[in-house]
């Protein structure tokens, strides 16, 4: 019965539920975007290895302490070497260093945006060192500081779109390196800079970029359970190597991928913060819209309410009729939103990455939990919006209502 009235006023019902449609669409799209972030993060963990630790002057989650961190003394090669030699618990430990500004030349063309990573042969035994084509440099090449390079996935794609990278010469700051391997794609949306790197032996790196740079130490704990033990060993050793007094703070950071979780949570907060405001606003508009149309509906159907009461409808029956009507309105709105969002999401995930590669973390499907959330929210909104009009309808005096024209 409640449905007939809605169907009779299709256009009006649709317009009334637009606010709800917009509100629910916000919730759904926000949930979808966050879900995309989560998946990207999980992918990154898998790709980069959740048991990796990076001892560094810089703190990945540094944020507000940036100034303090900048004043830290660099970690010298000697300190790095000492740490690597003294560590007992981890599976692997080796030094690395990065240079973000280097002159690249290959096939007589210059490139920017490529960073150089001087690293150990052990790099090949971490997930990040997986090779797509060719090979990683060996322990001997590392010891001899051989001029060999493993190029990142994007570097290869950029310089050698038609293949043939292996064996080609590459000039880094004027010095020739032979490309011996291409790394697998590491990048998710967050770590795509990893695909813009060129890996060379640590010794060769120092010869080009000098000994003054702060170095980092990559440590593979071996398992996630081992992480805490390895961390406390690193901390103890580093404090003694860096001659810290008991009351001094650590002047180095032990970074792990989890640090990105914090960054991600920060992003999540911003997305929710921006989204939730608009969502609440559009739900208020939605509730007012539906409440208004329900008031109109009650007034229009005063006579009908009188007839129903005269033939024995209780207050509760009338109340239910209008609550169901407004809930159906909202549920219809949410179904419409789901369909609309499914289309948006599918199109976004299909076509957006062509223009904006980072969008490839987006899934073309809506997470199913959102369906539950959307339907629960819409029923809730329907009840809230219908409550006052329904009570007014239920409390109408039958004599007055029957007399209404």
């Amino acid at each position, binding site marked *: 019965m409640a449905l*007939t009235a809605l169907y009779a006023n299709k256009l009006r019902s649709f317009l009334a539920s637009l606010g709800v449609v917009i509100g629910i669409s916000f919730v759904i799209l926000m949930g979808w975007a966050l879900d995309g972030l989560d998946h990207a993060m999980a992918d990154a963990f898998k790709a980069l290895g959740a048991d990796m630790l990076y001892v560094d002057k810089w703190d990945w989650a540094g944020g507000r302490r940036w100034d303090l961190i900048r004043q830290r003394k660099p970690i010298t090669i000697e300190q790095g070497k000492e740490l690597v030699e003294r560590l007992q618990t981890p599976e692997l430990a080796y030094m690395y260093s990065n240079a973000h500004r280097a002159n690249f030349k290959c096939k007589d063309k210059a490139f920017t945006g490529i960073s150089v990573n001087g690293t150990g042969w052990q790099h090949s035994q971490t997930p990040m060192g997986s090779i797509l084509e060719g090979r990683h440099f060996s322990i001997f090449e590392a010891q001899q500081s051989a001029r060999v390079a493993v190029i990142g996935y994007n570097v290869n794609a950029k310089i050698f779109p038609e293949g043939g990278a292996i064996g080609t010469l590459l000039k880094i700051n004027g010095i020739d390196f032979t490309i011996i391997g291409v790394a697998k794609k590491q990048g998710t949306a967050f770590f795509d800079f990893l695909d813009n790197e060129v890996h060379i032996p640590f010794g060769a790196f120092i010869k080009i970029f000098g000994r003054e740079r702060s170095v980092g130490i990559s440590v593979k704990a071996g398992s996630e359970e081992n992480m805490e033990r390895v961390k406390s060993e690193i901390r103890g050793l580093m404090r003694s190597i860096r001659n810290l007094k008991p009351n001094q703070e650590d002047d180095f950071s032990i970074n792990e991928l989890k640090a990105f979780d914090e960054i991600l949570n920060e992003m999540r907060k911003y997305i929710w913060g921006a989204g939730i405001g608009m969502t609440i606003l559009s739900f208020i508009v939605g509730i007012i819209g539906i409440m208004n149309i329900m008031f109109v509906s009650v007034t229009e159907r005063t006579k009908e309410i009188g007839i129903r009461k005269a*033939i*024995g409808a209780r207050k509760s029956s009338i109340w239910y009729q209008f609550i169901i009507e407004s809930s159906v309105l909202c549920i219809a709105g949410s179904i419409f939103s789901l369909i609309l969002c499914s289309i948006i999401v599918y199109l976004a995930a299909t076509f957006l990455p062509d223009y904006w590669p980072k969008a490839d973390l987006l899934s073309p499907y809506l997470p199913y939990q959102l369906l539950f959330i959307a339907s629960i929210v819409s029923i809730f909104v329907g009840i809230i919006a219908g409550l006052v009009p329904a009570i007014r309808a239920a409390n109408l005096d039958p*004599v007055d209502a029957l007399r209404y024209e």
Partner: protein
Amino acid sequence: MSEIIETEKNPLIRIEHISKVYEMGVEKVYAIRDISINIYKNEYLAIMGPSGSGKSTLMNILGCLDTPTSGLYHFTGLDVSDMDDNELAGIRNKEIGFVFQTFNLLPRASSLKNVELPLVYGGVSSSLRKEKAMATLTDVGLGDRAHHKPNELSGGQRQRVAIARALVTNPSIILADEPTGNLDTKTGEDLMILFNSLWQKGNTIIIVTHEEFIARHAHRIIRLRDGLIESEEVNPNPTYSLMKN
């Protein structure tokens, strides 16, 4: 009250000294004043009076749509004057069948749905509802119009649907408010024949009207004026002349 009343003479409706007062600012307006009526089972009663006589108010109180300001109203032995809205709704649903001047059918529902509606509120199961509604529609001669909507029916047919809706719960009284007011004379007469036959089947009928020739169908006529009972007469010669068989 512990008086012993002989069952046979126990009235279906007992109204004692009821008044309905509306307060217009400081002034009190009596819509009806100190009215007492007994109505017995299978009576055919007409309530007459010009507009403003209080007959609508009396009808609303008789129909449990409204409660009196003072006085007693006993319906089938139950004290109605004290009931709350939901109890009154229950009485209206089970015991009273309304027939209105303007038919008051739900415009978007078929005849069958309209007739089913009181049973919906009475909590009758869907299949039984259909069956009863169909049978009642057939009784009033509209079995073949069950799936028509009100706007596809003539005035007389609409009023028959309304009568079927009033009858479907098998109520104690049929309360008709100017039932022929929106019908032409011929159709009105046909409708009065239907009321006569309903009475013959044992129904109690109360017709509220201002037209003498309609009231003449009843067996007792109560006339109201200015909220008071002006006269009460037994009609020795009710109009059956049109009832051929």
